[in-house]
C-alpha cells in the first residue's frame, strides 16, 4: 500500500486480473474495470438506440447518458464547457481533425518535438507536402525537451506547436505550461498529445491554457475506439468542419447546409454510444481513485524497478535515471539481446506482458540508431509484488 491508495483493492474491480498475469503494457492499452464493462453492457441490454434523432424513451436515455459522459470528461480535464469536448475514436483522430481543419497560410510552420508518436508526426509531415514547414525541436540526452531549441525555432510564422505531454517511449513529462507561455508570446496555438498523460495525471486544461488536447479512452480504463479532442470553445468555433454528414448539420438543401452547434458539428455519423458512455464511467472511476494517487503509485512502482535494475551495466534505461521523471514507464534494453526476445521471454516464463519495439516513435529511435526497447508501463492496479517478480525475471535473463 502506498499513501492512501490500495492497489489490491483496486484489482478486485478488474476481472481479467484473476488470470495469472502481470500486465505491464498499460501505455498501449489499459485493462477495464467491471464498472466500465457493466456500463457498456447496460447500453446494449437496456437502451440500445440512437442519440439526437428519435424521440422515444430509449433515444432520450442514450442522449442523457452521452451528455452525462461528456460532462464527466469535462470534469476530468476541468474544461470550461461540455461544448469543448468532442468524442473521437482515439488520439490519432483528434490530432488529424486539427491537422485537417486548421487553416494555414503559405510560409506557416508547425513545431513538434523529435519524440512524437507517429500520430503526432505523420499528420504534420503530410501537411509539409503542401508547403507548411515542420520544425523539429530536439530532446536532450536525458530525454527532456530542449527548451532553448524551442525558443530558437518558434517565430511569428509558427501557427501551431503540437507536442506530447508524457512520452510513451520513456515517460518524460514535457513542461506544457512553460511551452504554452512561449507560444502565447508568439501567438501560436498549442495542441497537446495527452494520450499517455491523461490516464496517469491530473490534467487541468484551464490551468494549462492549451488550445487543443487529444487523448484516448482505451489507455485510461475506457473502451477501445474511444477518444477525446478538447478544444477551447473559441478555437473550435474558428475551426472548419472535418468529416461532415449526419448530425453535423441542423438543416440542408440541395445547395447548402447549416452547421450544427459545438461539439456535434465535429461528430459526424452515428457514434459509438456504448463506448462513449463507458468512457464517461472510466473518467468517473479514475476521478474517484484520484489522479494524484495514481500518479504517485506509478512512480513508486517505477522506483522499485529502477532501483534494482538501473545499476546493472548491461541494462540501459531510456530517459532520465530518476524514476520520478519517467512517470510509470520503464523502457530498457539489455546489451547483446533483442528487445522482442526479452519481451517474449518475460511473457512465456512468468506471464509478464510488456511491449517491445519502437512504440510507434520510429523517428526518435531511428535518429539515435536504437533498435527499439522493452517497455514496462505501470498503472493503478499493478503492485509491488509484480514489480519484484518482473525484476527477478529480468535478473534471470541477465544471468543467461
Amino acid at each position, binding site marked *: 500500500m502506498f499513501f492512501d491508495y490500495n492497489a489490491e483493492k483496486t484489482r478486485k474491480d478488474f476481472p481479467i486480473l484473476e488470470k495469472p498475469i502481470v500486465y505491464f503494457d498499460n501505455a498501449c492499452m489499459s485493462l477495464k474495470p467491471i464498472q466500465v464493462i457493466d456500463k457498456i453492457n447496460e447500453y446494449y441490454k437496456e437502451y440500445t438506440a440512437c442519440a439526437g434523432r428519435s424521440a422515444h424513451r430509449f433515444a432520450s436515455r442514450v442522449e442523457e447518458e452521452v451528455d452525462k459522459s461528456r460532462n464527466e470528461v469535462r470534469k476530468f480535464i476541468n474544461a470550461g464547457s461540455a461544448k469543448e469536448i468532442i468524442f473521437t475514436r482515439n488520439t490519432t483522430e483528434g490530432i488529424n481533425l486539427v491537422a485537417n481543419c486548421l487553416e494555414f497560410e503559405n510560409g506557416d510552420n508547425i513545431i513538434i518535438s523529435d519524440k512524437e508518436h507517429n500520430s503526432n508526426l505523420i499528420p504534420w509531415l503530410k501537411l509539409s507536402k503542401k508547403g507548411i514547414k515542420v520544425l523539429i525541436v530536439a530532446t536532450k540526452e536525458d530525454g527532456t525537451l530542449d527548451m532553448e531549441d524551442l525558443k530558437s525555432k518558434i517565430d511569428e510564422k509558427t501557427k501551431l506547436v503540437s507536442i506530447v505531454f508524457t512520452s510513451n517511449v520513456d515517460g518524460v513529462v514535457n513542461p506544457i505550461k512553460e511551452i504554452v507561455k512561449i507560444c502565447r508570446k508568439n501567438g501560436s496555438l498549442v495542441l497537446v498529445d495527452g494520450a499517455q498523460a491523461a490516464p496517469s495525471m491530473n490534467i487541468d486544461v484551464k490551468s494549462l491554457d492549451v488550445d487543443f488536447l487529444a487523448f484516448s479512452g482505451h489507455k485510461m480504463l475506457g473502451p477501445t475506439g474511444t477518444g477525446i479532442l478538447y478544444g477551447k470553445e473559441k478555437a473550435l468555433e474558428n475551426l472548419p468542419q472535418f468529416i461532415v454528414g449526419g448530425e453535423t448539420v441542423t438543416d440542408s438543401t440541395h445547395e447548402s447546409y447549416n452547421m450544427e452547434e459545438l461539439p456535434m458539428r465535429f461528430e459526424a455519423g452515428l457514434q459509438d454510444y456504448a463506448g462513449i458512455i463507458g468512457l464517461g464511467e472510466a473518467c468517473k472511476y479514475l476521478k474517484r481513485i484520484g489522479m494524484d494517487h495514481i500518479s504517485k503509485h506509478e512512480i513508486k512502482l517505477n522506483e522499485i524497478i529502477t532501483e534494482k535494475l538501473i545499476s546493472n551495466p548491461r541494462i540501459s534505461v531510456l530517459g532520465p535515471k530518476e524514476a520520478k521523471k519517467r512517470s510509470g514507464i520503464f523502457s530498457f534494453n539489455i546489451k547483446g539481446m*533483442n528487445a*522482442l526476445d526479452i519481451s*517474449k*521471454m518475460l511473457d512465456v*516464463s512468468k506471464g509478464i506482458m510488456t511491449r517491445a519495439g519502437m512504440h510507434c516513435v520510429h523517428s526518435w529511435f531511428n535518429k539515435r540508431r536504437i533498435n527499439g526497447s522493452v517497455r514496462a508501463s505501470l498503472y493503478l492496479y499493478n503492485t509491488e509484488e509484480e514489480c519484484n517478480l518482473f525484476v527477478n525475471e529480468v535478473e*534471470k*535473463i541477465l*544471468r*543467461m
Partner: protein
Amino acid sequence: MVLCIIALPVFAILGIFSVKYRKLTLDSLDCIFRTVTFRKCRSSLDDRIKSYMAGKTLKVSPVLSGVIYKNYKLISWIILIIFLWSIYGTSVGIYNYAQYGNCNGPSDTGFCMLDPTGQNTKTSEIEVDKQSKVIYAKLEGDDPIIGNKNAELTIIEFGCYACPYTKKAEPTVKEVLDYYKGKVNLQFKTFYIPHHNMSYRSALAANCAQEQGKYIEYHNSLFENQEQLNEALLHELANNLGMNITKFDECLLAEKYKNEVESDTLAGVHAGVAGTPTFFVNEQKIVGPKPLRTFKTIIDEELKKPGK
C-alpha cells in the same frame, strides 16, 4: 530461417484446421523465401520461436535458457537434421509397410523409425551370425511337405513349435497355401531354439508323428496347445490323434530323430536363419510373421520366372 523450414509443413497441416496456423504458415514461407533471396526475414518467426524456447526454459534454469538463446542456430540445424532424417525414415517405413506389410522391410534387419523396437517383426532370435553368406535354404531331406506335393513352388519354413512368432505366422501360412492351392506347398523344418523350453522335444515329437503318418495333424496340435507344452501333453496329443502310443513314446524317449532335428537346425544356420519363423521362397527370405501380401509379392514374382 532454419526452423521456418520445419515450421512450414507443420503449420501448413495445422492450417487446414485453424486460421491461426495459416498466418504462421505464410510467415514461415515468407521467412524462407526472403532468406534464400538474401533479404531479412520480416516475420521474425525464427526469433519468436527462439525467445519462446528461451522463455520456457527460463522457468527451469537461466543457464539452460542462455545456452538455447546463444546457440539457437546450432540447435536449429540439429533439429532440422533430425527432422529431415525422421521424414526420410518415415517415408522408408511407409514404403516398406505398403510393400512388405511391416516397416522393417522383407527381413528384420532394417531399422524402422515407426517401430524402433521391432515389436511388429519380431522373431525368436538365436545366437548365429546374421551376416551369414549363405542366404537361402535348399529343399532337401525328407521333411514333410504341407500342401500339393507336385506344386510349382515350395516355401521352406524354419520354425519352432515353442516359438510364439512361429505360431503367429501359422494363419498366414494357411492363407498362403489356400490362396495358391496346388501351385505352392510348404516344407516345415524344425529349428531348435535352446532358450525356448520344449523346442527340442516338440521337434522330436513331430518327427515321431511323421513316422506314423500323422505329421500335419500333430504339427497343428502343437501350435494350438503351444502355451501348455510339456512332456505329458506331447504324449496326450499323440494319443488323441490315435497314434500307436507305445511306438510314439519309445521314439520320443530314444530321441530317434535327434540327428534329423539337429541337421534341420544346422541347415537353417547355414542358410542364415537368425530367428523363427524364417521363410525361404527360392532365394528370397521373409523373416518374422508377415501378412499375406508380403508373401504374394514374392511368390508372384517367383512364379513368373521361367521354368515355373
